[in-house]
């Protein structure tokens, strides 16, 4: 594996870090280093240009409303174009929660204001109003023959366009919009999801899938070696048990 490196652009680490998103970066780093893969991460804040060809993976987390507004403006003005370009060139993107919503065409706020998105994904998000139920709780999603588990907390309902697939099917929880059973979105090498918790540490299979996808652009047919995931698998199983038990009571 000599010379192999995962180069990550972490968008807005100071502004978009509300739900333990640091865990996702720590996880990517740990799982790369366990395989002897160098890990490089650049934090890009407001105004910083995105040179998409320098990266294998772009990560963006969730934020509070005020921060999300600032970020949305910067995305549209500064980073959306190079980001769309990168996606065309098969750079991987992992967007969580608020970051996921910002990948779409627009976000309509609870007050009815329409904020433009970065138009990376053909989806849009509508907040049905301050009185509407917020989707809060543990969530389990069926993905790729296994499960992805986490916590969701969002007021917005996301609806996917025709050319784009959900990441998985909701087993317990709400997902994109609480109606169609879909959670998240996949398009080319872009993964969008509402799951935090943090997402990656207790979903090691999904984490490895993201890393492999990111590295395969430059290293065709690349496969990660197996590592000891006993604790990760136990945490995953416990979280699934907790989520499914709670959802029955609810």
């Amino acid at each position, binding site marked *: 594996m000599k010379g192999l490196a995962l180069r990550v652009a972490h968008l807005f680490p100071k502004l978009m870090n509300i739900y333990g998103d640091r865990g996702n970066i720590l996880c990517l780093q740990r799982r790369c280093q366990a395989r002897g893969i160098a890990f490089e991460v650049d934090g890009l804040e407001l105004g910083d240009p995105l040179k998409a060809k320098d990266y294998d993976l772009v990560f963006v987390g969730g934020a509070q409303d005020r921060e999300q507004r600032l970020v949305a403006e910067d995305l549209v003005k500064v980073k959306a174009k190079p980001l769309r370009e990168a996606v065309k060139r098969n750079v991987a993107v992992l967007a969580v929660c608020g970051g996921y919503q910002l990948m779409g065409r627009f976000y309509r706020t609870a007050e009815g204001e329409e904020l433009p998105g970065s138009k990376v994904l053909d989806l849009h998000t509508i907040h049905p109003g301050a009185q509407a139920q917020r989707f*809060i709780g543990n969530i389990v999603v069926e993905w790729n023959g296994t499960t992805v588990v986490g916590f969701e*907390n969002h007021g917005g309902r996301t609806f996917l366009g025709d050319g784009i697939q959900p990441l998985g099917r909701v087993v317990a929880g709400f997902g994109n919009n609480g109606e169609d059973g879909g959670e998240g979105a996949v398009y080319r090498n872009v993964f969008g999801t509402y799951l935090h918790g943090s997402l990656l540490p207790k979903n090691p299979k999904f984490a490895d899938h993201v890393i492999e996808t990111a590295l395969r652009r430059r290293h065709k047919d690349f496969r990660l070696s197996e590592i000891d995931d006993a604790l990760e698998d136990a945490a995953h199983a416990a979280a699934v048990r907790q989520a499914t038990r709670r959802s029955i009571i609810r």
Partner: protein
Amino acid sequence: MPRFLASTPVPLGPAQRARNDRLLNSSSSLVAPGCSYNISVIQRTAAVAAAKATAAVSRRFRLGGGTALPGLVAERIDPDVIQELSAQLNLGSVIITGTNGKTTTARLLRSIVKEAGLKPVANRAGSNMMRGIAAALVDAASWSGDIASAERRLGIFEVDEATLPLVANAVRPRAVLFTNLFRDQLDRYGEVETVAAVWRAAVSELLAEATVVLNVDDPSVAALASAAEGRVVKYGMEDTSSGAAKLEHAADARWCTACGSELGYAAVMYGHLGHWRCPKCGNARPEPDVFCGLFQTGANGSHVTLKLPGGLVEASLPLTGLYNAYNALAAAAAAAALGLGRAAVQRGLNSATAGFGRQERMFVGGRDVQIMLAKNPAGLNQVLRTITANGSEADLLVLLNDNIADGRDVSWIWDVDFELLEGKTHSVTVSGVRAWDMALRLKYAGIDGGGATTHVEPEPAQALKRALSATPEGSTLYVIPTYTAMLEVRDLLARWAGRGAFWEAE
């Protein structure tokens, strides 16, 4: 936002007047016309008596000590019970709110107030919503619903951040103290900005004669000063020697409340608390009126030198860590706002004891057990700094629950700097409903207990036994629980305290 705090105290609330009017206008009234005052008294008396009976039954059958249920009963019978009873407190009330430090600050202030010769009426730790306040007032009242005016009674209420407007509306406080605002239970409180907006509105609705006591080291708390109509007492840390080298990962309010630019810090204390200044617009930490000029902490307590309006106060606390220096400072600032003397502040702080799960110590099987409640990243980071400041390798039991009172979302543990513990632990046991999440977080932080991996035991009693046996005799076991886990583990420890190392015999 309900309009609250009428300029002069009136015995009847609007809801009650409307009810009385309805009663008076109906022919089936039980009471003769013209007796509206009596109806309110009857209603209050009934509410207080029913609540007192509930409390007695609850205590008799040990249904949880009766902290909230009596309050709930009283409020059901008389929705204005808090307003009516608190109006009888002849020295008025103080409210303490904020993310962290409410319980300890209220406890320290209670100790000071007692030294000043007053009789505090206070809600119990953690029971800090309307029903908890109602229960405390009912407890202080006679069966006929009166609070004796012969004694100098002062209400000291710790209040949940989101419940502040309701309580302030009902008790019309003389002073409101804000400790800090950190990210906490986002699934329950919503975003930090939302809480700040609720507080701002509540401050602007206070009586003009009410004093607002603010921790100016927290930019979002300091910003409340501009919403206050009345007097503002500002407090902060001047001794920056115990501060952090840089902002913690979980720092929230690092953006200027005036212009949105990133704040600069001449000194970081913890979280986003410190000596801050906006490089763009010049908005900066105001000079505090009450400050801590010297803070030293050891294994068993700490020493503070506080500057109050009248002069210096030196005091020794049985509590450790920078966050407790802030609690002492907050209590002293509240005392200053109430016009209490320096001697009372000093004696009050010196004689204070640790409260419910807040560095509470118990002696179990030859081990000194310290419960360090931690509910959010800022608080847990402070607990970790306090434990590791000690130098010796620590024995830890970390319990993570995700019940409603803990916050259902456990992702906050990834915002905690557990990396502080690396190489500083002797044994680590994790427990609680989300024990596996915690174990994984600790694995990432590179923490191993006693050369092996962290021991996972979701069941609290088993975990406590395991952690006690892993702790050498004569050493301290630090128990770090979330709120509901604290209730469970405290109960176990209270039962086991004073007994031998019984787990070895089982």
